């Protein structure tokens, strides 16, 4: 490719960028732009559940330190084991810097996920990801409080699987919501989001 062609393409890209930034500014000014980050006053809710050691746990466990929350279930072949694996890698990368972070795996399928099962399942994958389960009504409170989508999908023989929000929720020490890490997020982006959380 000729240098001249490359130069035209680059100037074209600059044009697109200028239009994009201008457009975003205009939309923002006129208030018609979509909020990329949901402006939620406060996510979260009080709850009474148990951790994977059977110890009582409440919303206080998410306060006073940076927290990452994942809503999943053990009958999940891909998203849940992959997310636990990713979190474990990020924590290794962050090293000492990541120590204040607490990570919780909240079961959206408490009917099948007992504390013992979560313990065996999670402890084999990471020492840092603590499981939470308990009565369905209390799980429902958390799911609603964090605006998590879950739906039971029946399979043909009475069995079922779950559709669910696969993002990781990042919560600041004061309990406020920073944002999410999407499933399949680029590693560098995920690490930067965690660093930002750890500085909050």
């Amino acid at each position, binding site marked *: 490719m000729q240098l001249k062609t490359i130069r035209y393409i680059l100037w074209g890209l600059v044009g697109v960028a200028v239009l994009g930034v201008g457009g975003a500014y205009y939309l923002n000014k006129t208030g018609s732009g979509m909020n990329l980050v949901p402006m939620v006053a406060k996510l979260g809710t009080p709850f009474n559940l148990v951790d994977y050691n059977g110890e009582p746990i409440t919303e206080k466990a998410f306060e006073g330190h940076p927290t990452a929350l994942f809503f999943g279930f*053990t*009958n999940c*072949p891909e998203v849940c084991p992959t997310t636990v694996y990713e979190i474990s890698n990020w924590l290794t990368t962050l090293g000492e810097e990541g120590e204040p972070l607490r990570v919780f795996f909240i079961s959206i399928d408490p009917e099948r996920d007992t504390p013992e099962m979560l313990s*065996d399942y999670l402890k*084999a994958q990471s020492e840092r990801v603590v499981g939470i389960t308990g009565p369905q009504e209390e799980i429902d409170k958390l799911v609603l409080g964090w605006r998590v989508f879950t739906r039971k*999908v029946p*399979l043909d023989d009475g069995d079922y699987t779950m559709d669910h929000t*696969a993002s990781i929720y990042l919560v600041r020490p004061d309990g406020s919501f920073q944002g999410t890490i999407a499933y399949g997020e680029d590693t560098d982006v995920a690490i930067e989001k965690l660093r930002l959380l750890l500085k909050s």
Partner: protein
Amino acid sequence: MFKHIAVAALALTFSSAVSGTAFADDIVAGKLTISDPLIRATAPKARVAGGFMTITNHGDQADRLIGGTASFAGKTEIHEMAMQGEVMRMRQLAEGLEIPAGGSVSLMPGGYHIMFMKLGEQLMPGETRKVTVTFEKAGEVALDMNVLSVGDLKKHMENKHMHGDHSHN
């Protein structure tokens, strides 16, 4: 710069052609060729596992992957996972998965997979597991599926994906 990228892409394509057969030889069943049959290892107490492979149909008639059996699973189905925004959705393909005439379909993370359910035992990295998959026309095909750790499977699939060694028809 562009020339370098092209050369790098070409090099990767060749290396993938080699690594694609590094685990197991392709399985030929009638007009079908099955390559790279893999299972994601499971954590203790996990009762489901995903299985992956690429199926190529050299025939002039479509075939259909309709199910399977495995001694370690109480139930083996064909499922499709899809991300809709931030939500992960899972569906059973009750009618199976079409392998078009002259086409190739990859079962891979984030999409189609063999869903092993009601697992009776943990699937450990490094194991090879016997699985039978069933096609409408090609019938039952016995496979030796290699079990990879979550991390190794992810890396393997990223390489495969990057090299364009997949297609959804």
